């Protein structure tokens, strides 16, 4: 396993995405919303990295910034050694055939006036691949792969259920033979019985095609099921990153601890739950020092003054917290 995962596909170094906030008649710049505030991690070939965090922590923005659907403010994104942040339009188009994205809401991401076959075919048209006949064959093949019937190719999105629409989204993402798929909460809009179908499908496809996923979700149990490694994000920063079993058996960051204990489960009936006080603070005006300190149950006196560093505490287990010293 280790060896197989050694080949790094994507390296992200100190990635930042700020949204400027302006006020007044002359749009004076009054501050920045630091949606992604310096994130560093890698994704290896055939690896599934789970990215979890509460709403507003910047996980979706991070996903979009990797594809440059949002322009990064700073940092590096190295895909197979090339810096994505410096690519021109032509280079970007090529990149986007190798990195694809699946969105959360299949209703909003499919064109309601385009039949499903055309929707799946569209990426191939844009990338100018094959002729019409070859594309048709490919569409049929893809629909079978994701468990849709080929006769449904002429139907429109509203004729499908939520789970089927998500299958269409997956087929479209697969059309270009990508190496990496960014899945932005692909199952959170679906019913539980349908969620399991889609998760199984994504696992099958990952194995069959040898894909890497950046799997974004707020549901820890889903992430645990899918991912090899898990990154926990809070207010624009990754606070802990480790192998999934390590995260679940030995969480270091107090935020990870609280997240884990908040997951309702059949087995552990609310014993020793860590209740976090309050809400996620505004990213426009984050608390000084460690962003988590106002809600932390293990806060130290240093936490509201100094930002903790992101350190590798054990082999492959990174954490950003003053409780731990290398």
């Amino acid at each position, binding site marked *: 396993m280790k060896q197989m995962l050694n080949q790094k596909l994507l390296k992200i170094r100190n990635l930042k995405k700020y949204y400027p906030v302006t006020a007044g008649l002359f749009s004076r710049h009054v501050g920045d919303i630091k949606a992604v505030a310096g994130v560093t991690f890698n994704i290896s070939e055939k690896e599934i990295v789970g990215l979890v965090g509460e709403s507003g922590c910047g996980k979706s923005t991070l996903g979009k910034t990797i594809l440059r659907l949002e322009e990064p403010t700073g940092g590096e994104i190295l895909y197979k050694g090339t810096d994505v942040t410096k690519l021109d339009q032509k280079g970007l188009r090529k990149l986007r055939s190798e990195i694809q994205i699946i969105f959360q809401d299949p209703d909003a991401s499919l064109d309601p006036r385009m039949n499903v076959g055309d929707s799946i075919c569209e990426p191939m048209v844009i990338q100018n691949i094959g002729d019409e006949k070859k594309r048709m064959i490919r569409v049929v093949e893809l629909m079978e792969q994701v468990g849709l019937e080929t006769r449904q190719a002429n139907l429109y999105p509203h004729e499908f259920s939520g789970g089927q629409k998500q299958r269409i989204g997956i087929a479209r993402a697969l059309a270009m033979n990508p190496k990496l798929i960014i899945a932005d909460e692909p199952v959170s809009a679906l019913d539980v019985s349908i969620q399991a179908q889609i998760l199984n499908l994504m696992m099958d496809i990952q194995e069959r095609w040898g894909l890497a996923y950046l799997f974004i979700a707020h549901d820890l149990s889903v992430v645990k099921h899918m991912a090899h490694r898990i990154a926990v994000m809070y207010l624009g920063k990754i606070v802990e990153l480790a192998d999934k*079993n390590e995260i679940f058996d030995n969480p270091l960051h107090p935020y990870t601890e609280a997240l884990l204990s908040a*997951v309702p489960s059949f087995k552990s009936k609310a014993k020793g739950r860590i209740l976090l006080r309050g809400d996620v603070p505004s990213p426009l005006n984050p608390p000084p020092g460690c962003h988590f300190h106002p809600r932390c149950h293990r806060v130290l006196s240093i936490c509201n003054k100094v930002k903790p560093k992101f350190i590798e505490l054990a082999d492959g287990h990174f954490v950003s917290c003053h409780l731990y010293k290398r």
Partner: protein
Amino acid sequence: MENVILKVSDLKTYFFTRGGIVKAVDGVDFELRHGECLCLVGESGCGKTVTALSILRLFDSPPGEIVGGQISRDGLDLAKCSLRQLRQIRGNDIAIVFQEAQSALNPVLTIGDQIIEQIRIHMPVDYTRARDRAATLLKEMGIPSAERVLSYYPHQLSGGMKQRVLIAMGLSCDPQILIADEPTTAVDVTIKAQILDIFHELKVSRQLSTIFITHDLAVVAEIGDRAVIMYGGKDVETAQVSEIISNPKHPYTSGLIECLPDVSKSTDRLTSIPGTTPNPIEMPKGCAFHPRCPKAMKICKQQEPPEIITSKEHKVSCHLYT
């Protein structure tokens, strides 16, 4: 059964639309006992929300109509009583907390105005007393600086705070029964934990009887005393929550439990229920679940399953147990 404070029997709520008759609720039976938390569980479109709305007749009519069944509360049939009688019940005796806090609050009124309005409609108190009461309620919900929050507008609050304001509004007239429609669905895990905690507290401190609607079995395991599993507008299984989880009888219930990814175990593949929830206009004949059921038999396609009582507190509608 003693202590039953609300009894719903054979409730049928249909919506008469241009596309056909939508039998959203088609024969639901359950009873709520004093001080318990009863969970209505099911996927979208199974009729759990319409069941809740039917109790207070809060759906649009037309197209919706209660076409059969009784909802008995203190000798009164809420399904047939006059609107005037129903208005005495709504909010005062049975209150409801809606899904999606964002759309349930009025964006142009302050939080205080909205809670005070409700208190003053139902109780003979002046503005100042009502305002004090509103502040006390918000404090009970664990909202810090409650006095200040009263003057806020909904957009100034986070999702978790809005949900808490809604619960406070539901409790503002000391109801006996609280219906909570997916209060934990659109919020983050840490906020979900806070809200479940509030419901725990309410059960202990107020002896409140709650009908808790959710699709999340893990939440049910945590908060529920008994659960009603719904599918296709019908209740398919009713039992104690511990019994439902350890000994599910209906294939749909066991499917729902198995398809949840559980953090405490790691499996390679999830068991999934094939197919999708049926279209309520053309429900499958016989048992509504048979096209998706792994144990379907010949009879399932032809006859609706009868309700079978397998033990004192456990009933299930499935041909497997006849």
